[in-house]
């Protein structure tokens, strides 16, 4: 199956993906809250069973890991992308406050993920209604498995932590039941393209550009009300003012990472990430533009790509009018879907 087909399935039905790019850790001990609060960039006001997206920053306020933190009674799960498991554990153990009683363990099990406007329905068929009906950013434990409702594609998304001994059985169940949903297997590049189209942060791409949450537009994931690793540097950057900011764009011709962006003859930024959107039928890109020019809705900028100037149009994220916005577990099913009644993927306001 091509990546285009993987993405089409993810946007219209369901796609199953491996979760080996995600590390799941469990933080336990009397000081678990205190230890995590010192390293996680968001406020940790979480009820039992809730989760929240945030970041681990380094001392220079650059993202080290893209995380979801989830509260499980007095313990926490940390789902993290970016560093290897060993790097992640070392980062935490080095930065936890001295003398605080907190242990970091890798979760037992293997992660699978399910994405798509009908992912909830396939989850219900395979794992039961308690999983399929999970609210966004909540998790549910059953025996030795943990089911997280999150996702970074703009569609219904589930991260499923399955005991390693049961992973093949569960995977086979998804493949068997998924036949009725035209289930596809999605690769990491397909997930990343969907994340780009929906304005989700990618630690492996723009996250390695040396930028802070200010330039990355991720201040909603951080707190200015507490002290944590990177908070002092972040405040200093905020006081100095960010000189650039990310903006999404679309283009009819290919644009590539590193291409420079111009307004007339003035260089105003460059392309951080790009990819072809089979859903939009055009190229989508994440630009880093000088602050005065970093706005959506502008069609006067050009990219210098492959020796020529190519027009580009800045747009607001998300760039996809996701089907999941219109599919309700109370009223819809994949079997009785009516494609003709679905709104277009690209909608102009």
């Amino acid at each position, binding site marked *: 199956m091509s990546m285009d087909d993987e993405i089409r399935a993810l946007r219209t039905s369901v796609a199953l993906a491996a979760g080996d790019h995600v590390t799941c850790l469990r933080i336990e001990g009397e000081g678990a809250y205190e230890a995590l609060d010192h390293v996680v960039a968001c406020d940790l006001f979480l009820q039992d069973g809730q989760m*929240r*997206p945030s970041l681990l920053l380094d001392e220079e306020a650059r993202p080290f890991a893209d995380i979801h933190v989830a509260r499980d009674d007095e313990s926490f799960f940390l789902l993290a992308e970016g560093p290897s498991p060993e790097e992640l554990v070392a980062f935490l153990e080095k930065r936890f406050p001295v003398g605080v009683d907190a242990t970091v363990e890798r979760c037992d099990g293997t992660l699978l993920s399910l994405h798509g406007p009908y992912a909830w329905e396939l989850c219900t068929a395979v794992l039961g209604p308690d999983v399929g009906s999970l609210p*966004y*950013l909540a998790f549910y434990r059953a025996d030795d498995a943990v089911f997280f409702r999150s996702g970074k594609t703009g569609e219904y998304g589930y991260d499923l932590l399955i005991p390693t001994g049961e992973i093949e059985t569960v995977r086979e169940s998804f493949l068997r039941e998924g036949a009725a949903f035209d289930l596809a297997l999605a690769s990491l590049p397909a997930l990343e393209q969907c994340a780009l189209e929906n*304005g989700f942060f990618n630690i492996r791409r723009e996250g390695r550009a040396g930028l802070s949450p200010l330039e990355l*537009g*991720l*201040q*909603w994931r951080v707190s*200015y009300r507490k002290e944590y690793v990177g908070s002092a540097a972040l405040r200093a950057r*905020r006081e100095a003012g960010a000189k650039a*900011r*990310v903006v*999404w764009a679309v283009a009819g011709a290919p644009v590539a990472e590193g291409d420079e962006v111009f*307004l*007339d003859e003035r260089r105003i930024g460059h392309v951080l990430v790009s990819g072809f959107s089979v859903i939009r039928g055009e190229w989508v890109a994440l630009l880093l533009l000088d602050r*005065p*020019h970093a*706005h*959506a*809705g*502008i069609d*006067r900028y050009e990219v210098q790509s492959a020796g020529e100037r190519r027009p580009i149009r800045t747009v*607001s*994220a*998300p760039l996809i*009018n996701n089907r999941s*916005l*219109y599919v309700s577990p109370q009223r819809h099913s994949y079997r009785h879907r009516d494609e003709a009644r679905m*709104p277009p993927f690209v*909608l*102009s*306001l």
Partner: protein
Amino acid sequence: MNPELARYIQRRERILDKVRTILVERLHVSRAPDEIDPDAPLFGTGLGLDSVDAVELLVSMESELGVKLPHEGLSRPAMRTVNTLVDLALAHGRTDDVDG
């Protein structure tokens, strides 16, 4: 900068400021305006709005920026991020509220 582009950016920035003010003063988002990034998600854990806030948001967008939704189908795509609200105001709001 081309005068037309400069006017567009100025207008967009002023609407962005008004949307931020609505979020802080009417929706009680506990953030300083400059912490509210243009592409910040409105709901879920983005800025933390919920379905009750959505009604207040639409009412405020109409009273403060003259936004009238041309049809119900635009409400979901328009209320995803701060920037989609700005797009909505640019397309369906008053044109006289951001010049002064």
